[in-house]
């Protein structure tokens, strides 16, 4: 059975990419599901990131979070986008 590796990384305002978590699952769907859960955690734990990168077996999704009217990272919108992506992949 093939292994599907996934990683979630955050990019800071200086463009530095920092992997925050990674894993391996037996199927691509499982890997995406776990990676998206990890990305949700990354949004909560690193709310100031400029970008989140979710990579599963060479396919990369990027999320550039918006900002609220007060200039704060819009974590709620970012989480909604990830939920939408999860649904689209279902």
């Amino acid at each position, binding site marked *: 059975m093939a292994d599907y590796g996934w990683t979630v990384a955050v990019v800071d305002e200086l463009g530095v990419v920092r992997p925050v978590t990674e894993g391996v699952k037996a199927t691509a769907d499982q890997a995406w599901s776990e990676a998206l859960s990890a990305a949700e955690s990354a949004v909560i734990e690193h709310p100031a990131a400029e970008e989140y990168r979710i990579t599963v077996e060479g396919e990369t999704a*990027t*999320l*550039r979070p*918006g900002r609220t009217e007060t200039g704060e990272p819009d974590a709620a919108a970012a989480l909604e986008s*990830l939920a*939408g992506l999860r649904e689209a*992949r279902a």
Partner: protein
Amino acid sequence: MDMDERSSNKGFSAAVEITVRVSGEVPVRVDASNVGTPEQQVGLTLGSVLVYLRDRLTVTAVVEGWRSGNYSAQLLGPARPVAYHHAGLAQVMGSQVSTLVRLGGIPNVLVAPITRRPGGVVPSHLRMQVGPVVWQVCDWNAYHSIALGWERAARLLSADLPEPDTDDAEDWIAARRS
């Protein structure tokens, strides 16, 4: 009933997510008004979606986010026959706008490749979410034409020139380049 109670009884309406599937070269039109003034506004028509933009930062965030899909969009390859997409795609004219969105602030931009499911009707595409609008970009031609539209809007909103004599942004951009 005080003011707070009255306002809490009011309903609200918000477009949470609108999905648009695009294939082939998407007709793009840019209409600008009051450029270079605090009242500046660009109406960017991307096929059946009309996006109103006022702020350079808004469109810059979209341009940068859209660029991050460049590699994945190239992998999609050129446009395929419409029948391939199984999804009632109709040819789009510039005047057939069916969705109007006003984008402000810094919108969320999500870019994700989606692979067609065996037996599924949704084609492989690049899911490009900008604020409430999700574009299912089916090929490079669609990606590239929309990217050019965002970039044209960004150039207009970055201008510090006085209002052009014409609303036709094409003429105005050509005049600036000459």
